[in-house]
């Protein structure tokens, strides 16, 4: 039913463009940190400039998602809105816990390579990916679930690249996964797949 398909598109904030922006943001964010640490011997962690690049890119990502979300979900109220707020609060707590744990690692004497390299580059993405996976599974969004699980695997695998390589591996891996997701979304918009009538 064309009306239903059009309504689904209008109410869904996900889009190929948003995935493309996310892919570029991932490459820029992790690339900026990688550029700031690649020549460090011994490894001490991202420089202020690298972190500024990372946080600016993350801010761009947050701004684009908030804009797209507000536009798509304008006028929608009810259970899903309350669920999203609860999920957001839980995600914030989980991310704070990642950094609290990072502080604990530094406190007990773990090396800078572990604390400011392998751990933070990996744990943050694993938490974000796991949250996204749970969100998608609850809504039976199987392509989103696949992407989220791929992100978790990229993050875990990148840890083997070491404290410098983890940033590059995360950035390139995340970029490729998000580009693939964008391609799937674009393909879906051109076909009637996923259309259902309740």
């Amino acid at each position, binding site marked *: 039913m064309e*009306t239903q398909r059009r309504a689904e598109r209008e109410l869904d904030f996900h889009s190929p463009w948003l995935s493309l922006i996310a892919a570029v943001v991932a490459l820029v964010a992790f690339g900026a940190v990688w550029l700031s640490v690649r020549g460090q011997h011994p490894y001490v962690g991202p420089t202020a400039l690298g972190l500024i690049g990372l946080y600016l890119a993350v801010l761009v990502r947050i701004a684009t998602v908030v804009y797209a979300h507000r536009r798509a979900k304008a*006028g*929608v109220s*009810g259970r*899903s809105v309350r669920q999203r707020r609860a999920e957001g609060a839980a995600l914030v707590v989980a991310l704070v816990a990642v950094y609290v744990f990072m502080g604990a690692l530094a406190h007990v004497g773990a090396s800078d390579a572990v604390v400011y390299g392998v751990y933070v580059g990996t744990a943050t993405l694993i938490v974000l990916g796991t949250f996204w996976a749970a969100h998608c599974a609850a809504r039976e969004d199987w392509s989103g679930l696949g992407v989220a699980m791929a992100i978790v695997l990229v993050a875990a695998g990148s840890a083997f690249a070491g404290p410098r390589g983890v940033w590059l591996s995360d950035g390139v891996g995340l970029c490729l996964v998000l580009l693939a997701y964008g391609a799937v979304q674009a393909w879906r918009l051109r076909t009637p797949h996923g259309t259902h*009538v309740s």
Partner: protein
Amino acid sequence: MSADTLDPLIHVPARLQIMATLATLPAGDALAFTRLQTMIGLTPGNLITHLRKLEDAGYLASEKTGNGPASRTSVALTHRGRAALGAYTETLRGLLNGL
């Protein structure tokens, strides 16, 4: 199966559009009147008329919040409405498969 089995209340194009649009929302969610109007492209008066008919049949539930200019009306498909739309589309599919 005949065309007589199609729910005449939903069969009107404007009302079918309303039902189909609201059916895309997850159960428990509602859509603001103004957003629904933007998405469907009906005039406010026309939309209100169709919404009333659907609400009288128990297919929709509306809720008004706030007072005066800040008031907001939201509409949502009821379980009965969702089931009626499902039955309507199944009947339509059955009719079209016979072609």
